[in-house]
Structures are given as C-alpha cells and as structure tokens.
C-alpha cells in the first residue's frame, strides 16, 4: 500500500485554502461590471396575481431592469423540469404541473418568486423592490398533507392535489399473512419536515460573452452537468456547447443544492438581456422559503408477527408532501428511495406499500440527506420497538431474530432490491459494546436517584446508495442516467490531474480520490490534483448526492486508472523490449517479470508525450484516459446506532448523553473523513429527532423562517460520538466501497426516539413524533396533553 493510499487517515489537501480564507465560493465571485438581482417573493401562500406595475421601480436609482414572469413567458422560457416520472397504480403518469421560473397568474407558496429587480447595487435593488406595485388576490391555501386530499380542499393546481398514487409489493400476499398473524403492531407516525440549511446560502452569477455566444453560470450546485442539461435543454434552450456551468467551492449541500432552481435560470437568461453579468445571493431568509425542503410524511404501518416474534408481513400507507411544485427529483424520494427500503435489515417475507404524493401551498420538497431512507428506517425501527413491546420481547432479541442472516447474501427483498452484503449482527455488537449496553440499567437506576429519566434506543438499519444502475433507474422513471465519469490526465512529467463528474462540497474528494490514484500509480499525493465542478473541464458527470461519489465516481476513477495502466504497460513493454504480458506494475514501477529491468511511472509518462522511441504504428501518444462507470447495483451500507438519553422531567429537556454508531460502509479509503461524515449525519439525525421542524401555520406562512425559530443543532446540544465500523465489502464494485454520506442521518433518528420512548415507558408512551421537543415531553410527563403522544 502507498503510504497515502487506501486506508490512510490522510489530512485533507483542500484544507489549506479553506483555513486561510482562500476558498472560492460562488458569492466570492464578482465579475467585472456585474449587476445585482433581488427576487421579490410572494408573501401569501396562495394568491392570484392581479397586477404588477413595475414603472416606479424601473425609475428608481441604480435600477437596470425589472422582470416578471410575463417577460420570461414572452421569451418562451420553459418551466423548471422534473427529472423523474412516477406512474400511478393504474400505470397512468403522475400529475406534472408547470413550474414557471417566475410565477405567472398565480403564486403557490410563500417565497414563490414574482419579479426580479436588477440594479447596480443590491441595496438599490432592494430599495426599488419596495416601489413595485403588486396586487395579489388571496386564495385559500392548503398546507397539511391530510387536509390536501379532503374533498373541497383548495386546489394547488388545476389537476387537484394528488400528484400520484403509487404502490409496490404484493398486496394479496400481505393480506394473507396478516390473516395468520399472532400479533399485529400498528403505528401512525409523522416524519417531520426539515430544512437542509447548508451554511452557505445558494448563489448564482450569470454571464454572457457576446463575442463567443457562450453563457457561463457560476452556481452553488452539487451537480453542474445536471444543471447544464436541465437548464440548457428544458428552460433556456441553449446548447451544451455554449453553456458552461461552474460549481466552485460549495459550502455544504445535503441534497438541497442538487436541484435546478429558478434563480440559476434567471441570472443566465438575464445576462445577455442586460448585457452585464448578473449576480444573486440568497439571504438566509430566502433560503428558508426557496431551498427545497425535506421529509414530510404521514404514515400508517402495520407489522404482522408470528408467535415467535418473526415478522410475517408489513403494510404501509404513506402520504408524502411534494410542496407546491415538483422539484427536480421529488417524485423519486418517497417511492424508489423509500418504499424499496421497507424490508430494512429483516427477513420480512411480504411487504406492501402505497404512497400518495400530494401538492400543498408550501415550498417544494425533495431529497435531504438520506432522502427517503431515513423515513423508511424511522418507520421500521419504530414499529419494531412497538412490536417488541406488544410481544413482551427484548428489543435486541426481536431484531436479531429477524435479521437477514449473514450467510443469506445476496438477499432479495420483497420490495425490489437485492442486498449484496452485510453483517447486521456484527454492527449491532459493535455499537452495543461501544455504549456499554449491558451496563445501561445501572445507569438508568443512578439517574432515577437524582430525578432524571434515562432511556436507551437501538436502530438497526440498511440503506441503498451508490445511485444508480441507469437501466434500473430508467425503468423506474428516471429521465437521466446515473453513471459517473472520470478523466485521468497524466502530464508529461508524471503528475496527474483527475477530472471527476462528482462534486465535493465538504466530502473531501480532493483527498479521497487522490488516495485512490496514489495507491494505484504509486505517486505522491502532492503529484495529484483533483478537479471538479466545471463543465468546461470535465467530460461529463452526474454529481454528488445519494452517497454515490466513491461507489460510482470512485469506481469510474479506478476504471480510468485501469486504462492508464494498460496503456502504460504497452509503452513500458516497448521501452523494455519485453512482451506486454510480462510487464508488472507495482509501487510506481514497471518491471519485466523476473528481471531487474524497470521503468518508473514518470519515465513512461514522459515517453507518452515525447514519443521518440514509441510504437506509434499501434499506439497513440499521450496518457489521458476517460471512463464512464455505470454501477451494477445499488450499494447497501447498514449498521446499528444506539442512543442514550436523559430527560429532565421538570422541563422536558432531552439530553443525548451518549451515542454509539457502528456502521458498515464497505471498504474505508480515509477513516478520518469517514468518521467526519458519520458525525455530521448524526448531528442532523439527532437534530431531526429532537430539535428541527419546519412549521407552517394554517395560512401557509412559514413560522420557522429563520435561525431564530428553526432550531439548528449547536455545539452544546450534542455529545461527542462513539463512531466505529464493522465492514463487509461491496461485491460488485472493485473497491468494495458502499458509501457513508447519509448513514448518520438515516440510522440515528429512530435510535433517539426509541431512547426517548424507553425513558418515558413508565408514562405509558408508545410513540412520540419528531421533534421530541421539551414542550412535548413536558406535556407527556405532565399528563395533561395526550395529543403530544399516543
């Protein structure tokens, strides 16, 4: 192994620039002569646009232009497209309403953009925005999922509020199994709506070069090629050859920066109209009402068990909130990334799930870290705890009794997925040891003596990531492929630049990918640069989300390296006057097997570019290879998370006193980065369980519209975490990697809530919806407010 290769906790190559203030985030980019755009957004959740008079605003100091939806419509600008088509139970397509870049005729959620003022300075744009004369006629709004499907509910779109009514699994088989059930565990639960809130607000700068006809968009995106494709082809009708999208340093995404947003399309469209670069940066308040939000399910589930506690069948009925419009990948989240995971880590032989997706007068909902899989894990791990209580069984025992046996892989679930590998017993044992599970009752007793309520909760989960085999995704409605691309460019003196279609916005790709290259080519990390985020540099790419960057993007790197080594061996064979088959490559040296004749990697690279002594008849010069890798299957990270909480019954405050996560993320390339990814996911999962909630009032006003009211986990809300791995290798990619970006956020929420319910077991609590805020807990302890709990 190279010193800095696979398995080494290499310190990150990218850190110097971030630590010295030299990162290059989108808002750091200022183009010569740029103007500033300010979006005027709907303050009503549902209203008819009666009139927009822009005259006064246009005449204000510094104003360059004012645009409305009518201006874009007049230019035949397309709506923001949806990238995934889900079909109804009867095979008909989902309802796919138009999503104009700027609202026309109607606004459908608070924050829906109505007009844009462009001025010399942002302050002038904001000053002028107040001079816009906008008359809206309020319409009744619908906010809640259940309300939206009631007869007579206000219709968000002409086609009504049902986007699709979809299902998966075998309903008859499930019904039959329930007939034979010894017991049935039931639960009604909510998966709370969240806001991703990466610390960098979204931003976009659009620029047009009249001399070349090229458009450039700098944007806070997790996938610049996807934005180029969607915006170029569907919205602005610009060929890819004349559209460059750059996602420079991006300050976190967590899913919310996957999608194609109105502001990106606007600044790109407006740049040539105005003849100057156009810049927009979200204020945090805008992020709250324009970034796609996450989760928001209401579900009912029933689990049938036999007398030994074996799961016989699971049926699930879920309502999923789409918000007011379909965000780019919204339909895929509560279907193929949710219901296909409902087997969890268990051998449940029959599963049936139906999902209704619903439009409401709220901000669009799409993937947020975990995307569908946290919702599945929460539902499964809550109902398993309830089943244990119904059966009078130990919570560990019921899980172990139903785990997919370690020798049963590959394992075909009844909901389409085939898990390739896993060892759920090993990860559970790892987490139990780390948290001293055996010693818990003594800690509970000690806490009780000082008036505190302790509880412990387990979550054993699996997820599917490494998105995705294109043919499967296509069959399921994806309007894109989900391969990844890598271009390995060896330079004449032997240094290497990797161009990857994935995008790093905190994940440390510049280091992890460099480790893959160092390992394979035997060169130092200082000889390797990783380039990402610029469509003019990188052949193509689908970007970073769904924990795919190593399993898919990393495999593309390996495949490109295979091609590099293959070609380099041919060059070495020529130089060493040996048969290609006799050339061995190890530790950066090409050697003729069984001899001491060798050439270094650098010598081969130089020869490739200075081909004086070179087999030019049979081999092209140069050493620059591109690979596209389309995964054969999803990958299936899994593990066990155990949370220990202590509740102050006087105030209802839940303190996470300990948290252990033992995850199987496949082979670990950089353990330091892997642990960091888990930590961050845990914080978001604990945040969902205890603190975070996007709240609308019944008129559709966002009540949690800033950091003053949306509770972001802070340092003193969290403990240090006990993080470990117990890995099995992925069987279908050469690195054996699975993915780690989302596991923390997927496994942790049910562990926390299971712990809270355990702490409150003397109060007869079966379930608490997230977030388990102090007020909710106090209401339970106080006994007066049963609505907080079942």
């Amino acid at each position, binding site marked *: 192994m190279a010193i800095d290769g696979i398995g080494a906790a290499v310190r990150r190559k990218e850190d110097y620039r971030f630590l010295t203030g030299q990162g290059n985030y989108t808002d750091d980019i200022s183009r010569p002569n740029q103007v500033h755009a300010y979006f005027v957004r709907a303050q009503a959740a549902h209203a008819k646009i009666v009139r927009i008079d822009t005259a006064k605003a246009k005449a204000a100091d510094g104003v360059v232009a004012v645009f409305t939806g009518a201006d874009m419509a007049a230019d035949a600008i397309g709506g923001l497209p949806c990238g995934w088509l889900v079909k109804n139970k009867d095979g008909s397509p989902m309802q796919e309403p138009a999503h104009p870049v700027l609202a026309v005729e109607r606004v459908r959620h608070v924050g829906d953009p109505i007009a844009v003022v462009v001025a010399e300075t942002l302050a002038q744009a*904001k000053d002028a925005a107040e001079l816009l004369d906008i008359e809206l006629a309020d319409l009744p709004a619908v906010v809640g999922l259940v309300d939206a499907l009631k007869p007579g509910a206000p219709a968000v779109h002409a086609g009504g509020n049902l986007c699709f009514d979809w299902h998966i699994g075998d309903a008859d088989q499930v019904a039959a199994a329930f007939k034979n059930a010894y017991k049935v565990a039931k639960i009604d639960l909510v998966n709370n709506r969240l806001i991703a809130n990466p610390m960098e607000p979204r931003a976009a700068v659009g620029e047009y070069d009249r001399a070349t006809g090229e458009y450039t968009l700098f944007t806070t995106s997790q996938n610049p090629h996807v934005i180029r494709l969607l915006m170029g082809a569907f919205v602005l009708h610009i060929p890819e050859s004349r559209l460059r999208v750059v996602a420079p340093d991006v300050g976190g995404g967590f899913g919310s920066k996957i999608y194609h947003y109105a502001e990106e399309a606007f600044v790109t469209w407006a740049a040539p109209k105005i003849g100057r670069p156009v810049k927009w940066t979200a204020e945090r308040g805008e992020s709250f009402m324009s970034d796609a939000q996450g989760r928001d399910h209401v579900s009912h589930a029933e689990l049938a068990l036999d007398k030994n506690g074996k799961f016989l069948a699971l049926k699930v009925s879920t309502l999923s909130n789409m918000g007011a419009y379909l965000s780019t990948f919204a339909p895929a989240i509560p279907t193929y990334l949710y219901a296909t995971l409902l087997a969890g880590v268990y051998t449940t032989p029959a599963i049936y799930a139906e999902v209704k997706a619903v439009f409401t007068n709220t901000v669009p909902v799409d993937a947020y870290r975990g995307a569908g899989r946290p919702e599945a894990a929460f539902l499964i791990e809550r109902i398993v705890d309830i089943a244990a209580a119904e059966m009078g069984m130990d919570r560990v025992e019921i899980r172990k009794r139903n785990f997919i046996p370690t020798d049963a892989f590959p394992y075909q679930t009844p909901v389409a997925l085939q898990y390739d590998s896993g060892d759920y017993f090993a990860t559970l044992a790892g987490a139990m040891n780390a948290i001293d599970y055996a010693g818990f009752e003594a800690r509970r007793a000690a806490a009780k003596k000082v008036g505190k309520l302790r509880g412990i909760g387990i979550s054993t989960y699996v997820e599917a990531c490494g998105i995705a085999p294109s043919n499967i995704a296509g069959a399921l409605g994806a309007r894109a492929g989900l391969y990844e691309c890598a271009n390995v460019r060896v330079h004449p003196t032997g240094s290497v630049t990797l161009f990857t279609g994935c995008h790093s916005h905190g994940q440390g790709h510049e280091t992890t990918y460099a480790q893959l290259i160092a390992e394979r080519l035997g060169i130092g990390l200082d000889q390797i640069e990783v380039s990402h985020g610029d469509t003019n540099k990188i052949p193509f790419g689908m970007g970073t989300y769904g924990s795919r960057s190593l399993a898919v993007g990393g495999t593309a790197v390996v495949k490109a390296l295979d091609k590099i080594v293959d070609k380099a061996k041919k060059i070495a064979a020529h130089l060493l006057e040996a048969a290609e088959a006799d050339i061995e490559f190890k530790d950066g040296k090409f050697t003729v097997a069984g001899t001491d004749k060798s050439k270094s990697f650098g010598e081969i690279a130089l020869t490739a570019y200075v081909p004086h002594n070179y087999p030019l008849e049979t081999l092209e010069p140069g050493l620059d290879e591109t690979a596209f890798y389309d995964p054969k299957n999803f990958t299936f990270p899994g593990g066990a998370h155990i949370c220990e909480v202590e509740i102050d019954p*006087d105030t209802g405050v839940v303190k996470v006193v300990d948290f252990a996560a033992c995850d199987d993320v496949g082979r670990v390339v950089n353990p330091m980065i892997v642990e960091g990814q888990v930590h961050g996911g845990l914080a978001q999962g604990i945040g969902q369980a205890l603190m975070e909630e996007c709240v609308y009032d019944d008129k559709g006003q966002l009540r949690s519209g800033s950091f003053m009211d949306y509770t972001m986990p802070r340092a003193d809300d969290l403990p240090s975490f006990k993080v470990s791995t117990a890995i099995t290798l992925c069987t279908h990619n050469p690195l054996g990697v699975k993915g780690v970006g989302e596991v923390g956020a997927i496994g942790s929420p049910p562990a926390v809530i299971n712990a809270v319910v355990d702490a409150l077991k003397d109060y007869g609590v079966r379930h608490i919806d997230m977030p388990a805020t102090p*007020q909710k807990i106090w209401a339970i302890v106080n006994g007066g407010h049963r609505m907080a709990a079942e």
Partner: protein
Amino acid sequence: MYDFAYHKPATVADAAKILAADGDAKALAGGQTLIPTLKQRLAKPSAVVDLSAIKDLAGISVAGGKVTIGAMTRHGDVAASADVKKALPALAALADGIGDPQVRNRGTIGGSIANNDPAADYPAACLALGATIKTNAREIAADAFFLGMFETALKPGELIVSVSFPIPEKAAYVKFGQPASRYALVGVMVAKTATGARVAVTGAASAVFRWSDAEAALSKSWNAASLDGVKVSPDGLNSDIHAAADYRAHLVGVMAKRAVATAG
C-alpha cells in the same frame, strides 16, 4: 437596510441634542438588536447616533452598597469584572449568559434595557434587584421603567447613563433558552433583600414583570420549597411554536425554584 445618516457624538449632551431634534433618529449602543432589526428593514431611522465615543458612559464601580454600570459597558466586561463577580455574582453570571461570546463583546447594558425586548435578560435583573436607571435627565426606578413590549419610560432624546444595582443578600438568575434563538423562553431572577424577596420574570410575557405571589412566598421563607404550589397563571403569557402559555407558566415555576436554589 435603509440608508441613514451616521453620527458619532463625543458627549451625552451632543447625542441628546441630535436625538431630540430628530424624532426618527435612533441611538446605537452595542447594536446587537438594532442592527439585525435594521437589516430586516423593520425600522427606518433617519439617523443612527453611535454612543460608543462617549467616554463617561462605560465603566463599572462598586460603592455604597451598589454596583453601578455605565450604559455602554459591554456584557462581556460585566461578566469578566472581578468587582461585579465579588459584589453581585448573579449579575456577572447573567451577563455571561447573554447571547453568545460575540454578542457579549458588543452588546451593552444600556442598549438592552432601553430596547426592553420581552426576552432580554438584563430587564429581569433590573426589576428583581430594584435597580435605578440614571439618564441624562433623571433617575428612574426599575419598577417605573419597563412599561411594555419594547416600551420604556425613556422620553425622546433621553439617554441612559448608568444603571445602579443595590447589592442584595442573595440573588440568582436562571433561564430556559428558546432552543433556536437562545433568547430567554423564560428567565427568572430572584433576589433576597433586606426588605424582602423580589422575583422578576422575562421571556414569558409581553414584557418583564414581577411575580408577586412568589415574592410573598419567598419573603416568608427563602427556600425553593416555598414555591411549591405557587403558580403563575398562563393567561396573558406568550404562546409560540416553541412554548404554549401553559408550558411557559410551568417553566416560570421551575426556573424560579432553580434560581432560589442557585442563590443558596
């Protein structure tokens, strides 16, 4: 933010003159509430009068059984003051819990009190300790100072110069932070003085208030258990997504007991 004229007078008199002449001018102390308010375009002052150059407005002195703090004294300086820690540790502890370190490095006692945010911490200290607020015109007892939400007895052009806190026998402030903003969802300051107990509650209602039932109970017997069964009515208390009025009312009792226990 709307634009405004910026003034930085060197004396209280000059500052008062500008403020008196222009009813739309606003005094700027630490700015930790005013600037965010301006950024949200929730206020449109014609001018902002920065008080930071007025030398005699900042400082701490302990004398005559009183701790006197100049209006422009930063929270962090009160928290770190050896004199305050010794004479009135509850006040130093309260200052050390306002906002976060960066807010404490800028925010001032005068600004906090003049703003009278319903969830601010200092007003509770003023009421519970029976402070006297000295302005450029007069001295105002805390009981007559805090009139309502963001409303005080200050007249146009009137500026706080200093706040004097009589040193109590015992005192403590305990708050329950609003989870997102970390402002006081409920904060209770208790003080045992020669003339009886005083209890002030912030965060719970539209403005800081004294809780007379608790004062009576504690005046009888200074002990957390004295508050058993003493309840504040939820009627009129704040209700929001973080805490309904009944929960706030409950927390008032819990925080009061904890404050008494902390005071010893």
